[in-house]
Each structure stands twice: as C-alpha cells, then as structure tokens.
C-alpha cells in the first residue's frame, strides 16, 4: 500500500499549536462559535448518527483509496480534507478507540450507564454514580506546581521566564485553546467532569525543560470536586512531569496530553490518596510524529480509583510507552483502562501494568485495548498485565483486548496473568537460603522497583520506594504471615 497516500488522505494535519511551536495559540472567535454551535446541535441523537454515517463513508473511501495504486485518488472517490479551522467537521476523523464508542462534550450524548456495560462491569456502580450526574465542584482541591528542587515554574503570563525555562503553568478558560483540543470526552464521567469543571490548568512545554516539573493536587475534603489539566509539549521539546495526588478527595479529573513531533515527554501520575478518597480520571493522550511519550501511573492508595486513558497518535513513528503499577489495600478498588488507538502508520505502543493486591476485599481491574485501525500499517503493539495476589480474598480482573483492522503490522501481542507468586522465582531465591518470607518480600519489592525506577525523577522514585518498603514491613506480620499459613 502507498504510505504516502495514506498519510495525505487520512492523516489530519497536526494541530496549529504544534506547528507554531512557542507561540501560544488561541482559538479564534469563529472557531469558538462554531464549536458552540456544533455542541448545541438541535438533535444530538441525529448528530451522533450523522457522525457514524460519516465515519462509515470515510472508512469506505479510505479503503477504496488505499486499494488503488495510483498517485492521485480516482475521481469518484471524494476525499474529505481535514480542516484545522473546524476540527469537528468530520467527527469520524477524530480518532476513536472504537467506532461504536461515543465521543462527546455533552453528557446527554451518553446513554444511561448500566452495571453490565463493558465499561462499568468490574466496578460497583454505587461507588461511581456520584460522578455520573452533574455537581457543583467545591474547588477546594489545591493545585500547586514547582520544579523538583522546589524552585518556581513560570506563570503562563510570564513570557520571558517561560521562554528561558521552556515551560509555564497556569489557569486558562475552558473555552481557551488548547483546552478540549485532544479528542473529546470518552465516557459519561468524562463528559460530566468537563461540563462541571471550573478550573482548567495548562502546562505549556515549549522546549527543553531541564528540571522535572511536579504538579501537586492536594485535597482535604470529601465533597465532589473537578479539575482539568492540559499538558502540551511542543515539537522537539523534552520534559519530565509528575502529577502527585494526595489527601482526602472525591475528585473527577480530566487530563489532556499532547506531544509535538520529535518530542520526549516523561509523564507520571501518582495516586497516594487517603483511605476514603475517590478519584475518577480520564486522560486523552495524543503522541506526536516521531515523538516518545513515557507514561507512568502509580496508584498506591485510595478507596476508589478509576483511571481511563485513551491515547492515539498525531503522526507517524510515535512511540507510546505506558507503565503502571497499583498496590491495592483491603477494601479498596483500583481500575486502570489503557485504550490505545493506533491510527497512524509506523507507530509503537508498549503497555505494561502490574498490580499487587494486599489483602481481603482488595479489588483491581485492568482493561487494555489495542485498536489497530486500517490507517495504521507497520504498527507494533504489546500489552501486558500481571497481578500478584498477596493474600487470598483479593480479586484481580485482567482483560487484554486486541482489535486488529490492519493486516500489515509488525506485531500485536498481549499477555495477562493473575497469580500468587512466581514459584520459580521464589524457589530460586529460597534455594539460596533466603526464607520464604524474605523471598516474597524481595519479589514484591522487585515487582514495584522495576517500574518505579523508570519514572526517571529521582526524588519521586525514592519517596515511592520508601512508601512500598513501609507497607511491606507493615504487611509482613499481617499479609505475609497469612500467606505462609495459607500455603
């Protein structure tokens, strides 16, 4: 197949801000009005149906055009062109992880969720329902930012320092570019979060940022709150960003991450919530051409944490490397969904999620999907989930999915397991004189350390390993002895 042709016909141009580099793009009044108009469409159902119809037409056209070997498309094939001034003109061209899935800023577009829906099947609807209806956020969650060494990250308005340090941070309006520029909300919780959010924060990375940026979200309140973050990394930029969550919160959080061509972004989100906290997060992620996004998620605590990530690509040769770990305590629930959409040629994705469930009533779910669209030849994708059940009575669900709509790929693989301990590893350590208990400790520690070491931000790594050591030392008498008794 002709890649060149694919590229020009089916690849949307990169968003304006990516091409313009360091200049801050603002949505024009015309764009804003048009978007408002699209959103306020009289019949939403009709609009979705139209979108689906367009999608089908587009798919047909694409396959028609890729089948033809000629340099120019045959006359009867009408190729819709992406219009950067009107990104929503062809909703079907906004990449989606499945055709049947709804993408919308309007909660009304999503059907009433049912417990048996694929999206919600692992969790307890009672625990998430409060995020499925509109609410007024308290706006009490504190958001602060600094470099790893504690020094200040420039404000968006501080143009000169921003240019010097290659990054700026601050609040923007929900209608202001780039808010809402990466795809659209992917489920009802995301649409509600977008609807009710009053605070949108933008981290604008424009060049090489020497020191890691730490964003802290801290809350002391169990009333519902909502936040939205937008992280943009310009072409050729390099940066490390960590978002740390802690305290007591019932938080709906949206995140948009988009990276420009040839950029490298290390992104980590850490969940270290207090016991009674709930966190429902959705991330829409777009990886730039030839860019590398290292995406890490560490969920160590929180009564109910559900994070859904929907990454896709803006151009060829993007590399998305997703690593996640979760350590779920008794009575807690942690769900991670990685819904990778390969919509561009020559891209690579790696998804490795590992969990440990510590005790009775600890529940986790991982759902990983790799959707490889017809527009993504030479895709190389792999997803893996491993769960370690430290104590009986914990439940780990693991569901790797693969939808391959393109025969011309390098590889697509997945693996998942739910086990107690790796017997071979334990035997190896024990055969060297290490007690069962210490062998387990070494393995669990290693299980986490392996991923934590890849965060790439020393102080965060050290702090997280310390947390895990503490937990292992504490769990030793409870969880570990239980394991020994159970054997």
């Amino acid at each position, binding site marked *: 197949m002709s890649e060149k042709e694919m590229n020009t016909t089916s690849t949307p141009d990169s968003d304006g801000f990516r091409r313009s580099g360091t200049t801050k793009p603002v949505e024009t009044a015309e764009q804003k009005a048009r978007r408002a108009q699209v959103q306020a469409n009289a019949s939403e159902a009709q609009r979705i149906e139209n979108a689906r119809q367009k999608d089908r037409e587009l798919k047909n056209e694409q396959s028609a055009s890729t089948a033809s070997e000629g340099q120019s498309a045959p006359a009867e094939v009408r190729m819709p062109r992406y219009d950067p001034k009107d990104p929503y003109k062809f909703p079907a061209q906004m990449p989606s992880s499945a055709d049947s899935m709804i993408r919308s800023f309007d909660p009304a577009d999503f059907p009433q969720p049912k417990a048996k829906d694929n999206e919600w099947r692992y969790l307890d609807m009672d625990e998430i329902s409060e995020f499925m209806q509109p609410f007024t956020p308290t706006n009490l969650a504190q958001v602060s930012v600094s470099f790893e060494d504690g020094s200040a990250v420039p404000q968006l308005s501080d143009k000169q320092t921003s240019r010097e340090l290659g990054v700026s941070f601050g609040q923007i309006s929900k209608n202001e570019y780039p808010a809402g520029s990466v795809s659209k909300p992917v489920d009802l919780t995301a649409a509600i979060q977008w609807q009710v959010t009053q605070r949108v924060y933008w981290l604008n990375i424009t060049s090489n940022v020497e020191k890691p940026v730490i964003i802290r979200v801290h809350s002391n309140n169990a009333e519902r709150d909502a936040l939205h973050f937008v992280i943009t990394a310009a072409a050729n930029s390099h940066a490390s960003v960590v978002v740390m969550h802690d305290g007591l919160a019932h938080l709906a959080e949206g995140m948009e991450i988009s990276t420009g061509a040839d950029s490298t972004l290390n992104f980590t989100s850490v969940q270290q919530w207090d016991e009674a906290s709930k966190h429902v997060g959705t991330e829409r992620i777009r990886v730039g051409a030839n860019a590398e996004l290292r995406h890490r998620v560490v969920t160590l605590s929180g009564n109910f944490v559900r994070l859904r990530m929907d990454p896709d690509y803006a151009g060829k040769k993007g590399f998305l490397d997703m690593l996640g770990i979760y350590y779920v305590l008794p009575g807690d629930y942690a769900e991670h969904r990685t819904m990778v959409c390969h919509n561009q040629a020559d891209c690579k994705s790696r998804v490795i999620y590992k969990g440990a469930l510590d005790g009775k009533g600890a529940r986790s779910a991982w759902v990983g999907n790799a959707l490889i669209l017809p527009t993504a030849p030479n895709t190389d994708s792999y997803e893996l989930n491993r769960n370690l059940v430290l104590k009986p009575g914990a439940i780990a669900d693991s569901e790797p999915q693969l939808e391959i709509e393109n025969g011309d790929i390098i590889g697509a693989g997945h693996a998942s397991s739910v086990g107690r301990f790796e017997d071979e590893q334990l*035997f*190896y*350590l*024990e*055969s*060297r*004189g290490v007690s069962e208990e210490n062998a387990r400790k070494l393995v669990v*520690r*290693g299980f986490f350390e392996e991923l934590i070491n890849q965060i790439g931000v020393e102080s965060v790594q050290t702090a997280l390993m310390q947390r895990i050591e503490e937990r292992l030392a504490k769990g030793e008498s409870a969880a570990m002895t239980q394991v020994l008794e159970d054997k």
Partner: protein
Amino acid sequence: MAEVATNVSEQHTLEIRGLRAGVQTKEGRKEILKGVDLTIHTGEVHAIMGPNGSGKSTLAYTLAGHPKYEVDGGEVLLDGQDLLKMKPYERARAGLFLAMQYPVEVPGVSMTNFLRTAVTEVQGSAPSLRQWVEELSTEMKRLRMDPKFAQRSVNEGFSGGEKKRAEVLQMELLKPKFTIMDETDSGLDVDALRIVSEGVNHAKDVNHFGVMLITHYTRILRYIHPDFVHVFADGHFVRAGGPELADELEESGYDQYLPEGVSESAQA
C-alpha cells in the same frame, strides 16, 4: 569468616537412598526418578552423565526441594539429617547448593541485595559491609565478571555464560558443603568454560565441598577432574566407574543406555 566457616579436616556425607520422585503433568502423574542411590563425601567429584531427558535435572531439583517434584520414596541424608523433610531454604542453610541449568531471572531484585540477603541468612549473621564488598569484588574478579553485574537484577538480561558465572559466584559466596552443578558447562564457549571451571576448582580448594557434576558432555571433565563417573539413564544410575568411563562414553555415546531403537540424536 571464610577462614572459620570450613575446617579442612571437616568431613561431610551426602547419602541418597532409593530416591523416587515424579511430577504431575496434564496427562497425569509421571514417574521420573526410579530409585536413585549415591553417596558423596567431602572433597569428591562425582560426574553424572546421561542422555537428555533421563532425569538428571529432576534429581538436582528434587534434592534442592523444588515444589514441582513430589518425592515418592527414599531418603536423602546430609550428615544423617533428612533433607527431604526440609524446606528449600533450610536445605541451603544445611549446606546444599544447586547451580541450576536454567538460572531464574528475578526482575527488580538486585544481585547485591540478593547475595547479601542470602549470605546473611545462610551464615546466620550479616557480614560486615567492608568485608562483604571486598569478598564480592574479589570473587567477581576471579570470574571476570563486570562489576556492573552487582547492580543489575538477578540474572535479568544476562547471557547464558553470564548466568553460569553468577551461579558459580553464589557457590563461592555461600560456601556449601555439597554442590550440585546441573549442566553448568552447557552454552559456554571455551574461554568461559575455563574461567567457570577454575572458579569451581578454587571454591572447592578453599571450601572442600563435595561435587555432583551433572553433564551431558565430557568437555568440562578436562577442567574439573572427576573421582567417579556415573551413567544415569531412565531415572536411575545404570553404571559407575572411574574417570576412564567418561572417555568410553565420549567414544560410544549414550545409545546403549537408551531403549531399543532410540538414539540420542533422534531424541534431541
């Protein structure tokens, strides 16, 4: 510590009597060891040679206490203590060491962390840091191992030869009374084989352990000289002799020890 741990005159005995063991497979229970008898004393090297699939690794794993292999009968005594009643780590602490044919990768657990934990548990107390660092670096140098290996995860990403060196390193540090080497020679080039063999010989000179040297080929016996050679086939010993038996096997191969009509090359 190295000086006090082993007394040159200390004599130990490992006795295997009528050992029978098997494994659960999807097709049901499989008998592998069908009555193994062998006695090894301190300082002796017993080469155990046999065709692939005869049960050599199973013997090694069963002695070390791998949970997959179920013992059906017999006994294994180390100085009269029944090893079969012990957990794997207790056997290691009693003085048994197994250099595995396929050393296991343990991601995230660093070599140093693991080795220090193991040495501490086997000896019952932590070696002083200074002494430890010194000993580790001396032994690694002897095996021509890059010091960087100490910081890497246990066996992870090690080449075949590097894994085998790491096994011998552990043998040096843990100072067992008896060591089982399961095809430590396989996958080693000539240089690596020499270095690994020298490491074993050195450890044996210092610690005077008894060796059960499992091998398929006679190659390693040019470096580690056996006192006895045993032929192992179909789950038990079928012949015993001196070093000259190895030469005979080199000439004639294992075909005579295999069931009628089967040849080693056909089996592989």
